[in-house]
């Protein structure tokens, strides 16, 4: 029967097809061009902020511009060799055969992955919220809660085998984050209290709670600094190489969690619930979905993912809690979730970009004396371009995407 054949063909296409559609529909052109434009404009700013340009200006403007270009070029070279490592050094090290030298040469590459890992978790947290119609600005606070819970489990239980201790500590982190997401979720669902306001407030509570815990109950005995005790070895995410490479299991956990989030959102009925509530709450109610439940579940899950970011950092990299273990992963995550179009795959890719830039920037600061803030400026520029695709379209003379003839589906974040 040709009809049946036709059907199976279509069904086969749909399995891969739906995934592909999800990605391709969002059109990669704009994000790629936005990144490109951000890097370009970042270079201009590096040039403009370079002193050489101004000292030279009086002598020869052309020379000054040359200096500016040179400064921009140099900083990008250090940025990228900082994030990927220098090929020359890698080859030399391999030829030399010295283990430590090889590890040093390859360290920048692995360090970029280490830096990307918390971004993956954080980005997934924000993306899951957005897909469910919720704007979770509380990721940063949830990261801290995840850190507190996981570290406490990490140093309190002694003598547990790693196979139990590590998952326990990691899941405790997820639980801590989930708790911090649950509260604003409950407030939103039951009272209509806006999650944007409440998650910001929850952030402050988390930060101050961390301060207090590190001064009193969780303070490391004998230390004058506000830091927690070091976690047991059995709670650590195993690292794959010796020093100085810090690359650890967390990266693969993050990838697995991203796949899980994708499966949950797009393949299960629960994900269907959340996405429908996010896309059109009125239709969701009409279809018999429980919006109260969906809102609470979505915020808790989002918080759990954020909590994993905290657990990952502390169990994999820092091994103790401090007030500064997150340089704003949670806030950057909002940006990168948008860059990744709230799709788990997109989130992984943009997390890799952010991690790489962050890592390179640190090295750039050390090597070329360019302040690390330039990376924040660049990230801001990239996001501005993403947020205003019209600018990118105008610059690159792209065609307007086909206008949906029926009602355009527009919905502000959070509100309804």
């Amino acid at each position, binding site marked *: 029967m040709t009809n049946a054949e036709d059907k199976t063909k279509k069904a086969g296409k*749909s*399995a891969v*097809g739906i995934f592909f559609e999800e990605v391709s529909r969002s059109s990669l052109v704009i994000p790629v061009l936005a990144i490109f434009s951000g890097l370009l404009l970042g270079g201009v700013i590096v040039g403009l902020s370079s002193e050489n340009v101004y000292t030279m200006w009086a002598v020869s403007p052309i020379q000054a511009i040359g200096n500016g270009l040179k400064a921009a070029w140099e900083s990008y070279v250090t940025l990228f060799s900082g994030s990927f490592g220098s090929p020359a050094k890698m080859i030399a090290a391999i030829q030399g055969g010295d283990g430590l030298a090889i590890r040093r040469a390859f360290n920048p590459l692995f360090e970029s992955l280490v830096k990307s890992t918390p971004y993956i978790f954080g980005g997934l947290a924000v993306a899951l919220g957005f897909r469910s119609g919720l704007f979770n600005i509380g990721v940063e606070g949830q990261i801290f809660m995840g850190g507190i819970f996981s570290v406490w489990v990490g140093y309190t239980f002694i003598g547990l085998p790693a196979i139990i201790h590590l998952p326990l500590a990691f899941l405790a982190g997820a639980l801590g984050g989930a708790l911090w997401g649950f509260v604003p979720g409950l407030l939103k669902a039951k009272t209509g209290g806006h999650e944007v306001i409440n998650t910001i407030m929850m952030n402050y509570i988390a930060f101050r709670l961390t301060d207090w815990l590190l001064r009193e109950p969780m303070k490391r005995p004998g230390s004058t600094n506000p830091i927690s005790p070091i976690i047991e070895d059995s709670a650590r995410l195993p690292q794959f190489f010796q020093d100085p490479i810090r690359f650890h299991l967390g990266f693969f956990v993050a990838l697995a969690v991203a796949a899980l989030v994708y499966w949950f959102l797009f393949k299960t009925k629960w994900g269907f619930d959340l996405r429908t509530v996010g896309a059109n709450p009125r*239709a*969701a109610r009409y279809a018999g979905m429980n919006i109260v439940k969906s809102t609470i579940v979505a915020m808790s899950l989002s918080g759990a993912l954020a909590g994993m970011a905290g657990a990952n950092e502390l169990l994999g990299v820092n091994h103790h809690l401090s007030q500064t273990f997150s340089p704003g992963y949670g806030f950057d995550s909002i940006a990168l979730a948008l860059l990744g179009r709230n799709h788990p795959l997109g989130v992984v890719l943009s997390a890799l970009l952010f991690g790489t830039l962050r890592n390179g920037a640190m090295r750039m600061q050390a090597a070329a004396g360019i302040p690390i803030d330039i990376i924040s400026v660049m990230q801001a520029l990239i996001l501005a371009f993403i947020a205003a695709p019209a600018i990118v379209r105008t610059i690159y003379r792209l065609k307007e995407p086909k206008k*949906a003839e029926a009602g355009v*589906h527009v919905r502000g974040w959070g509100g309804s």
Partner: protein
Amino acid sequence: MTPILELDGITKRFPGVLANDRISLSLEEGEIHALLGENGAGKTTLMNILYGLYHPDEGTIRIRGEVTHIRSSSDAIRAGIGMVHQHFMLIPVFTVTENVMLGDETTKFGGILDRESTASRIREISSTYKLEVDPDARVSALPVGVQQRVEIIKLLYREASILIFDEPTSVLTPQEADQLFGIMRSLAESGKSIIFITHKLREVLDVADRITVIRQGQVIGTTTPQDANMGKLASMMVGRDVVLEIEKAKARPAEVTLRVKNLKVLSDRNALAVNGVSFELSGGEVLGVAGVQGNGQTELVEALTGLRHPVDGRIELLGTDVTHATPRQITELGTAHIPEDRQRDGLVLSYPVTDNLVLNTYYLKPFAERAVLQREAILDHATELVVAFDIRAPSPLVDVSTLSGGNQQKVIVARELSRPIKLLVAAQPTRGLDVGSIEYIHSRVIEKRDEGVAVLLVSTELDEIMQLSDRIAVMYRGQIVDIVAIGDATKERIGLLMAGVHPGDTGA
């Protein structure tokens, strides 16, 4: 005499679609020229070309005999073309005067808004064309029909001589529509030329001087109301013979399916929108709920489907008390609901047709097995329904937002009627749809009735109520004024009831 507007061989292609295929059309001065066609026939594209929003691939536009290139809506306005959009472009918190002067403000002393001179021009226009409106009224406080007059005044204020009305009656009550036709005639008598876009046959015959029928981007023919009748126009529009009067057997009501007792429901503004409504509805009959929009029909439907909690009274479905049941419980008892606002309530526009077709059954077998969505089953289901319900979509995987209004409604109808149901609550099931879709949906509703389903049909279109119902309940100010058997119902009687006049009261 040269026509004021001539379209000659206008062709517009969109990727994969020939939206306008060599369309030629002429508009005489002082004429009402109706452009009749189903949704998606290309009327709107043509008007968007005329209004400068699209550029034709081929063809010319001549205004008063001169070839004119219209590149933007400001070009169109300069050429004297004005459009009354289907959805009004008014700012609700502004007054009529402020809305009219918006974008073309008159000022005095180099920058102070001169509301007075605009207001007096509005009064002038009002009296010339019998467009009664208070220039100082806030737009949000005006009824829809009056808001539309403000739109017309905006055009006249800008001295438009060619007026395009895009489906102007879709938001009006029958009375308001009649008033609008009066206005259109007086505009034409004073020399304005009007293009009247619609898919409603009766209106065309009532008001137009000439009628051009468009189908699939082509002009099928031009005729006059004298030479045409409803049947002829409908078949020109649809391309085949159309059954305008649905044939149905006498209803054979079975046992009571839905029993509503003294129901009271609050509106969003906490007013008593439904005030003590009681009725019984049996399997195998259609109970039509007639009434002017906003007399509690919306709240009644929402209460019956679990979307709004009644404050008092009782709803019994098949003997079960569902007064405080959730939408899902009510759905699972065998209720289908075609919601009034299909895009807001009935569909997720960003979802493909497939997902919209399982919007309220996605969690059941075979669409989900142990919480995992079964994409193949969902797609098979959609493929089947797309054929069975004649949903015109390039593929079931396209977003439902890309479908025409009629096909979007068919998606909802397919989803709701393909389940085993006992009660069908249909609110405005054919609002804004074309003849073909209306005919189709009507026949499906009657089919369900004949299968023994109890049908509650809520509609503001009296024609629709009269055609489909076995009994008619008329709602006025939250109450059912009377329930009339179809045999005793006349348009006049129902119309009076809709206005709250009970026949028994007429003497008083």
